[in-house]
Every structure is written in structure tokens, then in C-alpha cells.
């Protein structure tokens, strides 16, 4: 998993990074809410850990901004024990969970493992974008016609739909589709992008993937009317 950590206390941040990295997670640290918002806009993460009290922009405001942009990434708030209101406002702002300080690393890592299970086992059944519907459980793409997708094509289209507001680079797409251990390079990704393009065309979708060989790629909606 790739985790965005926003914590302004340098010492705590260092400890958290070390703990999460030792479990095999990739951690990107930032030190205030504004940086967190910028990172969330620019890159794809599996989870975000935000402290509440931070300089420049608080964790709460950052969550609000990130959610307002349509980002659905799982967010855990780090709140001080006494501040019940922080928990409430944090959750209401769009956070998914909170951990009260001081917390044990054991608990934090257990929560991340729980999230990992959820990501693997309970992904959304259907996703809509423009005039297409992706039924992930059945690996089927529908528009004015329907066609089956392979497991990899399903994962690839899934991440493209969920991050349609961003240009996604090769590394991100490959890691989310094939995981880290596979020997998949940008040539192979290009072939899968080509499969998806042809399949989108074969169901007469007004949705396309822009980007040339080598990436980055982005899903685009070419329909005249905006379904939103």
C-alpha cells in the first residue's frame, strides 16, 4: 500500500514512517494540510493519515478539500484523546476512521491491515463514468453493447475511473493492476491500454483513454452531456 502521512511533529512522523516502511508500505510524508491536499491531487494513494492540528492548514480542512475534489481514498485522522469534537468534525468532514493519541503502533498497523483486507475483498461492484458501466464482480464493461474484460483489464479500468481527474503514470497503473512483483513493463501496459481502448470502442462508449505509448494515461469523457 501507498500511504500519505501528514504529521507536523517531525519526531512522531519519523517513527510512523519507520514502522510503516518496515511492514512493506510505501510512505510519503508531508508536514501540513496544504501539502497534503497538493499531494492527494497529484498522486494516487491507498490510504492517508492526517494529524488534526497542523500549521498552514488543519487536517480537517485538508480532508474537506480532498473530498470536495471527489477523492475517495481512505483517510484516518490522528486526534488527541480529549478532543471528542475533533473526532466528530473529522468524521463529518469525510474521514473514514480516527486513532486517538497517544496510540500504539501495533494498533495503527492493525488498522492498515484491516484496510488492506477491505480493499482486496470488498471493492465496489459497479462503477459509472460517462456512458460506461464497469461491473467489477462480473468483469464486464457495458455501454450500448457489452463485453467481458480480463481481471487485469478490470483492475486497470477501475483505477482509471476512480482517478479520472488525474493523469496516471506507468508505475502507478502497473502497481495497481499487477502488484509489485510482476514483471510488467510499459510495453505490456501499452498493450492492455490498447485492449481497453478497443473494448471501449466496441461497446460504442463515448469514453476514451488519452495518452501515448509510455504514458501518462487518463480516462476522458467525450459525451456531449455531463451525466453528473
Amino acid at each position, binding site marked *: 500500500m501507498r500511504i500519505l502521512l501528514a504529521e507536523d511533529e517531525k519526531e512522531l512522523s519519523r517513527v510512523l514512517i519507520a514502522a510503516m516502511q518496515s511492514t512493506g508500505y510505501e510512505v510519503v510524508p508531508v508536514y501540513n494540510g496544504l501539502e497534503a491536499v497538493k499531494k492527494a491531487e497529484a498522486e494516487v494513494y491507498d490510504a492517508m493519515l492526517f494529524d488534526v492540528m497542523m500549521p498552514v492548514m488543519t487536517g480537517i480542512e485538508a480532508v474537506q478539500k480532498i473530498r470536495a475534489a471527489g477523492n475517495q481514498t481512505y483517510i484516518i485522522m490522528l486526534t488527541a484523546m480529549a478532543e471528542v469534537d475533533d473526532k466528530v468534525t473529522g468524521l463529518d468532514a469525510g474521514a473514514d476512521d480516527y486513532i486517538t493519541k497517544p496510540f500504539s503502533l501495533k494498533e495503527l498497523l492493525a488498522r492498515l491491515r484491516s484496510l488492506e483486507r477491505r480493499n482486496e475483498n470488498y471493492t465496489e461492484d459497479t462503477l459509472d463514468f460517462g456512458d460506461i458501466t464497469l461491473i467489477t464482480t*462480473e468483469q*464486464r464493461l457495458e455501454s*450500448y*453493447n*457489452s*463485453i*467481458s*474484460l*480480463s481481471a487485469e483489464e478490470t483492475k486497470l479500468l477501475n483505477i482509471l475511473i476512480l482517478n479520472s481527474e488525474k493523469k496516471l503514470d506507468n508505475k502507478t497503473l502497473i502497481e495497481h493492476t499487477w502488484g509489485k512483483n510482476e514483471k510488467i513493463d510499459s510495453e505490456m501496459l501499452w*498493450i492492455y491500454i*490498447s*485492449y481497453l481502448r*478497443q*473494448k471501449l470502442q*466496441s461497446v*460504442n462508449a463515448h469514453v476514451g483513454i488519452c495518452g501515448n505509448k509510455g504514458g501518462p494515461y487518463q480516462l476522458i469523457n467525450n459525451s456531449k452531456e455531463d451525466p453528473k
Partner: protein
Amino acid sequence: MEIYGTYGKYLPEIKDEIMHKIDELNHEIDGQGGRKLYEHLIGRVKCEDSMIEKCQRKGLALTPKSALGNCKDAIGIRVVCNFIDDIYKLVDLLKAQEWCRVIKEKDYVSKSKPNGYRSYHLIIKVSTPYPDIYEKKPGEYYAEIQLRTIAMDSWASLEHELKYKHNIKNPEQIGNELKRCADQLASCDVQMQTIRQVIHEYD
């Protein structure tokens, strides 16, 4: 009952002539260094019984005019291709031919029927040395051309079997499975098409 009347004897001739023309097209392309456009070609004249049944179903009088004028598939040609692109290439080629006129087309490849059926249907009109139902000579005859890939063809034979089996316990489930299978075959067709394009990128 001879629903085709005196015109019945011309139908196999016309069918063979159309098949011959399509075969020539294939050789032309092949000769130009291209790859052959289709895998195989079959043709049939709709048997009298089926045509009578069709006219009755449509409430048409059992006359040669109904069978050869109102119905346009007394002569049927099926072209089975290797790749989806070849279907469209052939459709374009047929439209450009002087010996026939495409008067109707239905693209069930890009928009499949709800049950999953995929094929490209053309109704063509050809000029022949024989008299037609309007007693014109040279007369004009209709033929239906169905173009599909090998995968679509196998699927259609399976679906055809289902249509004539009435003792199936769970027709709805089987129907859903057939639909799913059609989507998977379409997936393979598109995949093969894409691989072919990727290979040719290196040309």
C-alpha cells in the same frame, strides 16, 4: 406448393454467381499481397417450407412476389471472417461493387442483439440474366449477406440449437450464460484484433 414458382430454378444459379463474385474479391485482395478477407463462405437457398412458414408468419400471400419481393432472404450468403476488421473491410468493398447494390444494412456487431447475437447483415440487389417477378429481363433479385467472425459463427450455431430445443428446464439461465459467453467471445475477438494491430505497429 411451389412458392418460388417458375423463378425457383434461377435461385441456385444466382446464389452461386454472388458467391463467385465474393470469392473473386478475396482473390483480388490476396493477389495484391493483402491477407485473405474471409475464412470461408457458405450459401443457401431458403427451402420452400421455411419460406412458406415465413410468409404465413408475416401474413403474406403465398406467392413468388411475397417470397422474392417482400422477403429478401430467399438467397442467403454467409461470410465467416477471421477478424472483426475484416467484416468492415468487406462491407466497404461490397458497397463499392458495381454488380450489387446494398439496399439495407444492420450492424449487430457494434450493437449486439439483447441475447448476445453479433453479425453484420446486408441486403443486396443484383442484376441477373433471368426474368424477375416483375417480368423484367434482365431481372433483379435480392440476397441477404451475413458477415461474422468465426467466434460469432460458433456462438450463433449454439444459440440456434437452443432455439429449437423446447424441453430445456432453465431456458432463462441458459440464455444468460449464452449472453455471457457472447461477451467473452467478443472480448477474444477484440483482443485478437488488438494484438494484430500491435504486431503491425512494428511494420
